């Protein structure tokens, strides 16, 4: 495995399966009386969050703490970033504090990649702009494998705001590596220009895609990233690309409904669908901790790589 986790595309099939298998073992820890392992004692994990996040930050924090690592939380609000400090200077500060891993979320695509050249520890991408969110893709794959027992040949539809979604890109790359067939479903305005080069199918007709789908992954409409009118009205979007009870009935009986959260109930997903037994949304959050534990263990648990491979 690489020393950093920047893109889901960097993972080989073996790497990805190792992470999923490790997460499977580590998920048992949640059921124990003592939910802690001593493995990363004395290691420091910094959560560097330039963007608002609840579940990802808490999930990484819980994962690091369950492995006994020390966690330093850093959010851009109320820190020296508000005073104008650059990413590089912040990175050098973290370096001086001896961070073994930096979990970074940043509004700019590529920020984790830049950071990986400035720090000695491992860099884990927790979402960069509209680029990638590899641990989300891993936890989605983990959830699919748990619910449906396999990933090979699974038919996955990723629906909604693909253009602004880092989750979609990471999922397409990872699911392809793991042998699943992905179909993106979105209005043409919400698909990236280069989508034809992605290893997946594209459809504009949600209802026609549903009957031949094992997993429906709904994406949030990211209004905060939208600088132009991508669709006429929210109601029209919801009618054409929202998952409601009528559309849910079109799915095969075994199919599951996923959402990376946070949800806009009533926009991309109806409340009754989000709360139905086929929805894995709460499960995804729990699985996120196991998957992030696996990633941190595999990156930090073994021999120190830092001395042999110092960048710059």
């Amino acid at each position, binding site marked *: 495995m690489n020393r950093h986790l920047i893109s889901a595309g960097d993972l080989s099939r073996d790497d990805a399966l*190792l992470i999923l*298998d*490790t997460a499977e*073992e*580590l998920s*048992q820890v949640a059921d*124990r*009386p*003592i939910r*802690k*392992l*001593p*493995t990363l004692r004395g290691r420091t994990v910094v959560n560097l969050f330039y963007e608002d996040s609840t579940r990802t930050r808490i999930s990484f924090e819980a994962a690091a703490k369950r*492995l006994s690592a020390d966690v330093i939380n850093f959010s851009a609000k109320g820190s020296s970033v508000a005073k104008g400090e650059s990413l590089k200077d912040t990175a050098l500060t973290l370096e001086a504090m001896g961070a073994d891993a930096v979990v970074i979320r940043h509004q700019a695509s590529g920020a984790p990649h830049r950071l990986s050249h400035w720090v000695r520890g491992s860099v884990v991408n927790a979402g960069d702009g509209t680029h990638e969110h590899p641990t989300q893709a891993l936890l989605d794959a983990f959830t699919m494998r748990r619910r449906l027992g396999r990933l090979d040949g699974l038919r996955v539809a990723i629906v909604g705001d693909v253009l602004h979604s880092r989750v979609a890109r990471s999922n397409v790359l990872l699911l392809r590596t793991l042998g699943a067939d992905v179909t993106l479903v979105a209005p043409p305005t919400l698909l990236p220009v280069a989508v034809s080069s992605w290893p997946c199918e594209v459809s504009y007709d949600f209802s026609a895609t549903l009957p031949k789908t094992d997993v429906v992954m709904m994406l949030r409409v990211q209004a905060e990233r939208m600088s132009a009118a991508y669709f006429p009205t929210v109601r029209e979007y919801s009618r054409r690309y929202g998952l409601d009870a009528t559309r849910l009935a079109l799915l095969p009986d075994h199919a599951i409904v996923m959402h990376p959260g946070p949800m806009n109930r009533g926009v991309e997903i109806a409340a009754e669908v989000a709360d139905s037994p086929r929805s894995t949304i709460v499960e995804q959050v729990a699985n996120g901790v196991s998957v992030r534990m696996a990633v941190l*263990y*595999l*990156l930090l*648990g*073994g*021999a*120190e790589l830092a001395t042999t491979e110092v960048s710059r």
Partner: protein
Amino acid sequence: MTHALQPGTADGAGPPAENAAAEVAGTAGATAADPAAGDPAMANPATSDGRSEPLQVDKEPPPAGKTVLVADEIGRALTRVAHEILERTNGAEDVVLLGIPTRGVPLARRLAARLTKVEGRAVPSGSLDITMYRDDLRLRPARTLGHTVVPASGIDDKIVVLVDDVLYSGRTVRAALDALSDLGRPRAVQLAVLVDRGHRELPIRADYVGKNLPTSQRELVQVQLTETDGQDAVILSTEADR
């Protein structure tokens, strides 16, 4: 495996076992390849892509080292250990056997089967992965985790018998004790091993020993079990054999 914890042999402890597995696979491959070797039409495609499989099989070295326990002796040792467990635990009442992966797990299962047969009541067995509790994690790349399976009855207030193949430095057992304390609070913890080869680095001893095997630290003790290696044997080899 206990002996893998010894830093000096840590690197050597894995490969021979893998070799042994490759050996078994290699032999199977040879028999499968034999008809093909006799048929020139079949043999040609194999050599055309640069791989001459029959030759590779011939090059495999014979199993190195001396067999110190054969299948029957392993069986008898386990039967004796099972009876000792029954004696010391009042008929295996409240006993839970937990094997340490990889080879402790099938050994625990075999002991449980013997206890069940003698006492006529089911004795639960499971497995306890100790990877996350090892003290040498930072000496090697991150290891793959094994399974931890605790029987439904739990371990609280039970007599837990840890089962491993080889007792060497004692570091595996130390890690297992830590792992156990995170899972619950047994009434007592005991240790059963198939082979005790000495050279302890911690104040740990086994309660039940299949075979005491005085060794030099240069030697390698390798336990093979049908479940994991295709045959039952304990093999003692030296570095020169490898």
